[in-house]
């Protein structure tokens, strides 16, 4: 992909992330987040992972963020917006984040790249990403797949049990 496109997508993602974290109104944060997810999905497309891009939008932006919105409505945001956004020690958090960023940056300088695998871009072009992923998921990674479905089942049951009102 061209540098320009990446430049736009990258900076947009960063800006939106900053907005998510610093917005006063939680609903605004969620909306910025959804916007950021779209840009992220575009990046995935650029990397040749179409299936993941679709999943990202469907699951993350579509389901999880909607869940967040519902919860925000249940809680009383009018009251919350009256308080301070950041806690008292926010400079410490800022320094820590910045420090970690710089450190890891230095670390990635000495990165060693591993061996290349077999699924080249040509293979992906011929055989779609979805098909390739499906083939792997249902053969080599069938066990984690089933476990993931179990986890989702547990989450459903758990969420209902935890959040339901007591019947009087």
């Amino acid at each position, binding site marked *: 992909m061209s540098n320009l496109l990446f430049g736009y997508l990258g900076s947009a993602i960063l800006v939106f992330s900053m907005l998510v974290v610093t917005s006063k109104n939680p609903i605004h944060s969620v909306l910025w987040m959804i916007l950021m997810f779209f840009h992220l999905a575009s990046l995935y497309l650029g990397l040749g992972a179409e299936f993941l891009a679709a999943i990202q939008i469907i699951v993350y932006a579509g389901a999880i963020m909607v869940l967040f919105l519902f919860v925000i409505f249940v809680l009383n945001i009018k009251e919350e917006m009256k308080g301070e956004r950041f*806690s008292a*020690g926010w400079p*410490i*958090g800022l320094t*820590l*984040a910045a*420090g*970690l960023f710089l*450190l*890891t940056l*230095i*670390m990635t300088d*000495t990165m060693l790249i591993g061996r290349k695998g077999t699924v080249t871009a040509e293979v992906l072009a011929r055989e779609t990403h979805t098909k390739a992923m499906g083939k792997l998921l249902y053969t080599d990674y069938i066990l984690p797949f089933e476990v993931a479905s179990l986890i989702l089942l547990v989450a459903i049951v758990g969420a209902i049990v935890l959040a339901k009102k007591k019947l009087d």
Partner: protein
Amino acid sequence: MKLYPLIPALPLLGFFINILLGRKFIREKAHVVGIAAVLGSWVIAMMTVADVINGSRINEDLFTWITSGGFKVSVGFLIDQLTAVMLVVVTTVSLLVHIYSIGYMHGDRGYYRFFSYLNLFTFSMLMLIMGNNFLQLYFGWEAVGLCSYFLIGFWYEKKSASDAGKKAFIVNRFGDFGFGLGIIMIFLTFGTLHYDSVFGAVNTIAGKPFTVAGIETTLPTLIALLLFCGAVGKSAQIPLHVWLPDAMEGPTPVSALIHAATMVTAGVFMVARTNPIFNLSPTAMMVVGLTGGITALFAATIALVQNDIKRIVAYSTVSQLGYMFLAAGVGAYGAGIFHLYTHAFFKALLFLGAGSVMHAMAGELDIQKMGGLKKYMPVTYWTFLLASLSIAGIPGLAGFFSKDEILWMAYAHGGYGRFLWAIGTLVALLTAFYSFRIIFLAFHGKFRGTHEQQHHLHESPKSMTVPLMLLAVGAIASGWVGIPALIGEKLLGTEHSNLFAGFLSHVVGHPEAHGTESEEMMVMGISILAGIIGIAGAAYMYLYNTELPKKIGSAFKSAYNVLWNKYYVDELYNFIVVRPAFWVAKRVIVDTTDGKIIEGIVNGVPKEIGVLGQVLRKLQTGVLQNYAAMMAFGVFVFIAVTLVLLAAGG
């Protein structure tokens, strides 16, 4: 077959049986075990003594006790003439005291305990005298001190008794400290602790100079004086005599056995045993002699005014022990041991007789409250009288021969010996005086006690009077083995009548005696005269002119007070030693070391940990973000350290 190891082993066995099984099983029959053990010991001892008289000498190591580097000591026995004499004394008096205790301690709650301690004491004393090396001597030395503590404080619920036991042990420790140093010096000098090796090589140190704390002296002098420290403590000489009068808190059989015949004589025995070392040091011998003489005089003067019958006899013991050291000081070790031998009999008799009197008077000790006991307790009276005559040096009785030999040896030694002879004669006079003071005040005249006491008066049971009679035989006849050549020639027609001195000369040699026969007769005559004057004076003051003692007392009031208060020595020691020790114990140890330092650490460390905990507690704020921040910080540090190490290493 070797029987002699049984001599100490049987009493030890008796001790264990009585102390382990005594409370539950044996109880009132404890005397059977105790007496059987000591009787067996006595029989074998007599057989062994017979062997020694026939010329045998046993020096055997039984087994190796300690080996540590260059230090090797065995448990062994040396039975020579000196040991034989001591064996006779220890086993005989111990046996008679055991028999006496049946009657005296009848009904006491600690009956079995008493016999077990008596057995243990007998064992310790036998180990002391039969050992063939200094470490075994020291073991026996300390063990008899321990038994003395047990027995003095036998009625431990009485505070004065337990205090007296402690006093005896602690005062002895002062002496034993010097004694231990002496033994260490012997080891350092000779490289061994066995008697034969040490005494064989003793001439190598003759006159060797030695500087200690800036004072120039000879090595033999130093060793001898250090060893003598132990004797001063154990045999209650000045300045460590203070424990013996207080030791009268113990039961009377204990006083008879330990503080008359055996334990206190261990000091004299030790000096006689180590005479090769003492002979090399005229200085030490002079110290020994002077200490003995001054102690003899000191104690005799105190005995003049005491009213407690046991105390008088106790001071008499201190005085007579002074005589024995006086003899050793002029080189007449044989004479000192001879006096030890005769003294054991008549002093034990005096103590057991006093016990008999106390038994009849239901525990009363004050002779001012007695009187006229002669007609109630004839056996006690006659045996007590015989013992007093013996100690006064009346011719024909045992005390005469031994005391006379000492006085003659002192006179014949010359130099300071003449001075010691003069003191000794004065003490003989005083001894006769106070001994007969007891007789006249307690047994003659009118009874001065209460009516209940008078009803209670009776002669003691056979178990108590038979030992008295047997000891009386000893008090009379034990001196006949040491008749001096002067008399022996005239009466028996032989020059070698002093069997005792001849017997012991194998071990202690012959002292040098410069004197003519006429001087010897003069000395003998003066000492007999001193004894008679003493008895006559006592008779005058306590039988005829009974107001005189009070008049003299009030006329010389300050002198009387000094004597009555034992020259205030106890008070002096209390001030110099006891109170500073308590002060140190309280201020330094309890308050500072224990209170501040140890408690400080024990309490302070948890306190500091608590303070640290309180500080660290502030980390737990309960706010999730703080914990997350700490985690992030940890990751930061971790990555940073890894990077630095990678950069440094790679």
